[in-house]
């Protein structure tokens, strides 16, 4: 055993002279390492798709290059020193304690490099904090474990974009292309963080505070994001997307959102689903225009049942293509590809088509309706709510039968 270790030691000694070459090889492999990144990762921070993210990209690329060069110089110096000054029986070196001139030079160089980085950094910080050029405002509220979007009917939202009544959605943020959108980000429970990497850096959503985040997309398309502040049990299942539409498509989206509620035709499965929805779901989930049999409008009251006091508005669920904190697709994989990978000219039409019965991802939606806490970790066990005065965090299992699930899905498929 010992002999083996000695041999390893010996071979290491002979390998030492190859240290320089080895380090060069490491540098080359480091470059190929960088080239071996994932293609088209949806949350890649190096593929900006809007001016805010581009500003960050323009700033960070040179910083990474300079850092890389400094790194290579240090590694080369270490490798050279290890090779050149290894013990070859030379005399004990002079006991020098330093060379002040050299040390000053080697201190001033990093100072200059950092000054070169600092100036554009400060400029970009202020550019990204600018809010005076806002063309559209959207309120974004985080709660365990999904995002709500509220498009207020005020100011330029009405005048420019025809949002004459508030639009409340969840999961997917829909914005017009080349429009300077300002998100007003807050939270109803713990701290979350809103992040669509291809459009901008992240901003925490903090309860009791409103933080502003610029958002702008240059190309129609769908951009993935993820909550990036640890927010408890289902932090991994708190995702979101930003959907950028051409102006013409955006107008269609707004018009559809503002349409009156159409009840399912009498006698259809969807009509059965509507009454089930009223019994089982509408206490928490708002569907605008949904009415009781006596004609009175149903206003959901999630604040009575949930810690955060909010549940996703399902008025137009099937215009979005993900659900449950954007954790699962409403589209089958094939239909999903068709939308997500569409080129920017076709994207709007395909997105606005929403979810048809052929394209519906039955599997995940059914599992969710059958037993949602089994699918996504939540505090939804009625027997364990002592700490929260009986209020849930997340959706409890409703104990629906398969027939009831069929009816509710039929009803939901018409929500678009």
């Amino acid at each position, binding site marked *: 055993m010992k002999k083996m270790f000695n041999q390893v030691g010996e071979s290491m000694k002979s390998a030492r002279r190859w240290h320089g070459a080895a380090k060069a090889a490491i540098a080359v492999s480091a470059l190929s390492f960088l080239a071996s990144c994932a293609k088209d990762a949806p949350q890649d921070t190096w593929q900006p798709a809007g001016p805010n993210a581009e500003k960050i990209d323009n700033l960070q690329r040179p910083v990474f290059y300079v850092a890389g060069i400094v790194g290579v110089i240090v590694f080369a110096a270490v490798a050279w020193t290890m090779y050149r000054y290894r013990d070859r029986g030379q005399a004990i070196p002079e006991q020098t304690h330093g060379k002040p001139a050299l040390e000053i030079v080697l201190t001033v160089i990093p100072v200059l490099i950092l000054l070169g*980085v600092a100036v554009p950094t400060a400029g970009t910080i202020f550019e990204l904090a600018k809010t005076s050029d806002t063309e559209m405002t959207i309120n974004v509220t985080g709660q365990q474990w999904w995002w709500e979007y509220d498009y207020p009917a005020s100011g330029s939202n009405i005048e420019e974009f025809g949002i004459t009544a508030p639009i409340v959605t969840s999961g997917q943020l829909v914005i017009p292309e080349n429009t300077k959108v300002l998100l007003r980000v807050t939270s109803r429970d713990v701290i979350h963080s809103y992040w669509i990497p291809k459009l901008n850096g992240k901003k925490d959503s903090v309860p009791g505070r409103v933080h502003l985040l610029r958002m702008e997309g240059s190309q129609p398309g769908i951009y993935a994001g993820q909550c990036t502040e640890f927010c408890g049990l289902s932090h991994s299942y708190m995702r979101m997307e930003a959907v950028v539409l051409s102006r013409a498509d955006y107008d269609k989206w707004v018009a559809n959102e503002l349409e009156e509620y159409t009840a399912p035709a009498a006698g259809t499965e969807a009509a059965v689903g509507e009454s089930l929805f009223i019994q089982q779901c509408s206490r928490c989930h708002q569907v605008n225009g949904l009415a009781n049999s006596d004609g009175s409008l149903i206003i959901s009251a999630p604040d009575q049942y949930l810690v955060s006091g909010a549940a996703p508005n399902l008025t137009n669920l099937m215009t979005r293509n993900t659900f449950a904190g954007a954790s699962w697709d409403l589209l089958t994989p094939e239909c999903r590809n068709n939308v997500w990978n569409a080129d920017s000219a076709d994207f709007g039409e395909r997105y606005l088509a929403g979810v048809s019965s052929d394209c519906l991802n039955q599997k995940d939606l059914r599992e969710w309706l059958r037993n949602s806490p089994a699918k996504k970790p939540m505090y939804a066990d009625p027997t364990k709510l002592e700490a929260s005065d009986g209020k849930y965090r997340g959706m409890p299992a409703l104990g629906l039968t398969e027939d009831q699930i069929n009816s509710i899905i039929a009803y939901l498929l018409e929500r678009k």
Partner: protein
Amino acid sequence: MTIIDRPSTDVAVVGGAPTGVKPSEALGVFKRPTASTSWRDWVVTVDHKKLGIMYGVTAFFFFIVGGVEALLIRLQLIAPDGTVLNADQYNQMFTMHATTMVFLFVMPMAAAFANYFVPLQIGARDVAFPRLNAFGFWCFLFGGLFLNSSWFLGGGADGGWFMYAPNSSTLFSPSHGIDFWTLGLQITGIASLTGAINLIVTILNMRAPGMKMMRMPIFTWMILVTQFLLLFAIPVITVALFLLSFQRSFDATFFDVASGADPLLWQHLFWIFGHPEVYIMILPSFGIISEVLPVFSKKPLFGYPIVAMSGAAIGFVGWGVWAHHMFASGLGPVSVTVFSMATMAIAVPTGVKIVNWVMTMWGGKLTFTVPMLFAIALVVQFTIGGLSGVTHAVAPSDTQQTDTYYIVAHFHYVLFGGAVFGLFSGFYYWWPKMFRRQLSEGLGKWNFWLMVIGMNLTFGPMHILGLQGQPRRMGVWTEARAGEGFFNLGFWNQVASIGSFVLGIGVLMFLVNIVYTHKSKKIAIAPLDPWDGRTLEWMTHNPPQEHNFDTIPTVSHLDEFFHRKYETDATTHAVTQVHSAEEVMAELNAHPDEHIHMPSRSYWPILLALSLPVITYGLIYNRMLMAVGAAMTMLTMFGWSMEPSTSPDEDFDPPAPGEGGGHTKELSPLG
């Protein structure tokens, strides 16, 4: 004749017959403990070297605990939608992994080295307050055990080691995990704070004659800076932890938004502690390799005053950068700019250190022993971590990177590639000093290379994972966000997970090496001065006697020991060895100090420390138990205060002024 005046049954005596000092009794209920051989001695000891070893063994135990937690995390993340842990277990695992590694491994392991080697390096016989030192160790041990007992009592803390409010309140984390976390850290905080005071007083007051501040070994310098950081940082986290405890246990509303609180208060408190904490973890390792590189380069540390002062500069500027952990938390652009610039500024003294280490090796006579390899690896890996640190000092860039795996990569390069590699360099370098045997170099190289390969395989890919959008603290990742191609995020997650097991095996090799070194008959006792050391700790026996030095040396140089062994020709600057280590020792000990006063063992430190978990268990489970614990605390404090630091019948005679002979170094009688 030198007399070691200690109340012990086996009085150690140098150069003479035992004089039979009687075991003495303390005031109070306990007889003064006198055992010096059995396990009982370890319980009542106040010897800084024994306490250093106890710190080290305990910290290494927690290193393994934290390592197993890390391996479970990587096992969970090796494939999409992992099922090894559920969401709750995962959250506990990453919270406790970070907490264990920071508070129960890196900090106390640095304390282990500081305890053992600072008194030796400055030519002292113990620390200034030996009983306080013992108390600190027991607080660390009991605090760590208390914290980890939560695993068996309903689960560990689940709020992340940063424990952001309001997610840490009972509404969002109803289990007792966070209570254990808060109170456990409160207890270990006592260890850090008492240790800091003790070491500062020791370093400032108990240096050997002639050892000016600028002749102090650089490790001692870095420990001094670290202890000042602790002295000011620990009170901040103590306050924050109290606020959180009051919120959870007594319905206070410090972080309750509905009552008008701002949750960012916690973040500021946490990071005002948390950022200096980063330097608390790294500076001791900087100190270790600043000892190791000169020894194995046969050159003094290049730019010693600059390295010392840049350490102090990091210690100061380190207080002005905390909000770079909060660039996405909604600070205004002015604050963000200020903290961004300050963070870049701190890169300068850090870069200076790297330059000085390389320049130390430049022109040297390098031997690549295992401690040297670990030290060089620190220089390289810390450089990577430092450069990625500069990229997130650029605040806009950081809003893309923060809370992604890029940050995980960054701080593991700094803390594992930096701090932990420095500690391993220290293990190999000082092992013969502590345990008489030199760890096997062959096995050590396996240990080293497996750790280097494992560490880079684990944390290298995390740069890619983070920059391509994988957030941290997620118990599952999904293929839908992993991208296309062979090198997608799934591939790099697999590489990282496999790397973590290579790293685990690497660490295991260290334990194998210890067993092999001490069991194998082939490994001989190490020579007195195995590495051709430069500093005072090598002018003692292996391991040092309980009183460290028979004669306290008078210091006239930086690298005193080296200067006693070697002479430099004034004209040619050629360096020649004129004395062996044995000759230097013999010369030093030719005139041993006449009276050596050593502190006496005591039961009180462990008893006082033991009363603290009683209070904290009481706070969680039963308020009556809390009262019992508080009574124990009061009684033990009373007992301690009534016990003299040295036994009453001890012959204590201060050196008469002008008296000739050896230098007599008195220990502070404050104890």
